[in-house]
């Protein structure tokens, strides 16, 4: 069953078209992450779903009901903001119960729901405190609690972890995942952090310029990006691109001076035909050491620079005339100027048309 449907959503600020005929279907209980660089329209889309922005054209359905012109509070949503947005003059309890009081929920029920939310989020000892007396993590928990007490079908998160430090962010990320497993609510989560997107999402919608580029599971987005932008956006360190031509019959990919076999490449439609293209190779798919010769493509490179990150080592070099980065596991013993033999399977990479930049 579809829980949230966005149909042909268009939003204009004056002459600027921020969202352009955007369509989105979110299943009940799904965790959807809207991912994109800043200014791509992801937060705007979330605000439209919440009803905080009046849209120019299109429809929004939540739980099978057309809510396009309903007030935010009538849409059955709870929202968590980046800056927490707690009411500073109210205690935590006041913050949690504010929405329920507005909805004229009977007092005993308010107390019950607040107590339940406080228990789930482990903020019971904080109920009598003001937001100013809370740490960042506690504040964000209260903000989540404020959405929780409203007993809604859909949770909207607008970069909820961006204001927290790295360690706390990782902790709360896990907690959010657990919360979703426990509540099974539909959640729509906006972020620019791809780690959050990869770890939390059932599906990721990658946005650019008000248009959804790809909407798929994290693995699919990582392994089979639908275009060059998505390939470059997902993955850290970023994917390597080679510029070249696909040979007749799709058997190999040729740059100016290097030929890479493409046997076994799964084209997204039909067979590969000869054309100019980009080949994307993830830094993680490169192999070194004794297994190199099992790979369809092998070559020798010179290490130009390396970064030891502890768990792995990032090596910078030049391959086929373009800068090339790859990852070696562990604390590899390399030095600048060393010659290394590396191998990878170009057929496991991604091919994009030179002009349309769509996946081939």
């Amino acid at each position: 069953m579809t829980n949230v449907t966005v149909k042909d959503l268009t939003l204009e600020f004056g002459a600027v078209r921020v969202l352009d005929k955007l369509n989105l279907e979110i299943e009940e209980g799904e965790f959807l992450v809207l991912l994109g660089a800043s200014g791509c329209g992801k937060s705007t889309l979330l605000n439209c779903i919440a009803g905080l922005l009046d849209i120019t054209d299109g429809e929004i359905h939540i739980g099978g009901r057309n809510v396009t012109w309903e007030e935010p509070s009538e849409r059955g949503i709870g929202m968590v903001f980046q800056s927490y947005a707690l009411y500073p003059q109210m205690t935590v309890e006041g913050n949690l119960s504010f929405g329920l009081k507005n909805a004229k929920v009977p007092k005993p029920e308010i107390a019950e729901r607040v107590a339940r939310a406080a228990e789930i989020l482990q903020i019971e000892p904080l109920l009598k405190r003001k937001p100013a007396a809370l740490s960042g993590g506690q504040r964000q928990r209260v903000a989540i609690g404020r959405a929780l007490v409203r007993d809604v079908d859909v949770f909207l998160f607008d970069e909820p972890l961006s204001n927290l430090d790295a360690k706390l962010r990782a902790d709360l990320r896990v907690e959010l995942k657990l919360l979703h497993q426990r509540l099974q609510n539909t959640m729509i989560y906006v972020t620019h952090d791809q780690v959050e997107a990869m770890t939390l999402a059932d599906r990721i919608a990658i946005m650019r310029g008000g248009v959804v580029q790809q909407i798929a599971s994290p693995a699919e987005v990582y392994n089979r990006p639908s275009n060059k932008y998505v390939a470059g956006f997902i993955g850290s360190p970023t994917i390597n691109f080679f510029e070249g031509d696909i040979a007749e019959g799709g058997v190999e990919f040729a740059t100016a001076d290097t030929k890479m076999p493409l046997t076994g490449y799964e084209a997204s439609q039909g067979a590969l035909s000869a054309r100019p293209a980009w080949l994307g190779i993830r830094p993680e798919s490169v192999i070194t050491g004794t297994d190199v010769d099992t790979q369809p493509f092998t070559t020798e490179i010179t290490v130009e620079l390396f970064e030891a990150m502890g768990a792995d080592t990032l090596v910078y070099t030049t391959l086929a005339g373009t800068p090339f980065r790859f990852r070696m596991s562990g604390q590899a013993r390399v030095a600048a100027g060393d010659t290394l033999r590396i191998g990878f399977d170009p057929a496991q990479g991604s091919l994009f048309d030179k002009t349309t930049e769509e996946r081939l």
Partner: protein
Amino acid sequence: MTDATANKGVTPRGAKPRRRLSPTNIMLYGTLFVASVYYLLPLYVMIVTSLKGMPEIRLGNVFSPPVEVTFEPWVKAWAEACTGINCDGLSRGFWNSVQILVPSVVISIAIASVNGYALSLWKFKGSEVFFTILIFGAFIPYQVMIYPIVILLREAGDVLSAMTGTKIRLMGSVWGLVIVHTIFGMPILTLLFRNYFASVPEELFKAARVDGAGFWGIYFRIMLPMALPIFVVAMILQVTGIWNDFLFGVIFTKPETYPMTVQLNNIVNSVQGVKEYNVNMAATLLTGLVPLIIYFASGKLFVRGIAAGAVKG
């Protein structure tokens, strides 16, 4: 070498010590001293004169402290000084001023705060144009509008009389003046409140909307409790402005309802008999007392509020 090792890891702590009598400081405090003398000297003269009897004043030593301290001029200024046929001093003007001040301040701030709140958070089509026109009002000299307002008040009074069947006069009454003060306070107060509410994080407003609070719910339960400093600023501006107003007071009221400033003018400028400088000084000090008290009581909040309102335009 040994010194260097002994002091290893020891870094200076606390602020760098400063010389008290540096040339900069002498300049700075010297200027401040001269400036304060310049402003405080007239006040000093007023206070000592008001505490002297007339014979002592006639000696002509304006700066000398009173030989014989007397509070009689103060009593006379408050309760006995004559303007025309009335001889009840400033006291009547004081109560008139209070009657004008309280409703003017309350009404103007109440309306302007809602204005500012609506213009910053509930933007509607044309709200910016509306705001620009309103602010434009702050730059038109009052004098231009006096005569039109006299006519407006007179006509509005007639219309109200016809509607209610009782005789209502706005021109020349305290309520007419209250309306005038409320309207003239609107541009600057609205600007003040709009800027303050514009500095409130937008997400707070969004969160309240998701929580189902409406226009008034958000105003009273979220914004009002956060806006205390700016309310204090608005109050001080209005209290001082309205209390010190002379022009509107003399035009839109009549002798029985003259505010304190007009009463003061009439006492000081009365031409009959001897000029009683001590009474005049006491009367002036009495009139200036209210804004001074308000300022000293809430000065700290005033500064904080001004700063808070100035954050975002």
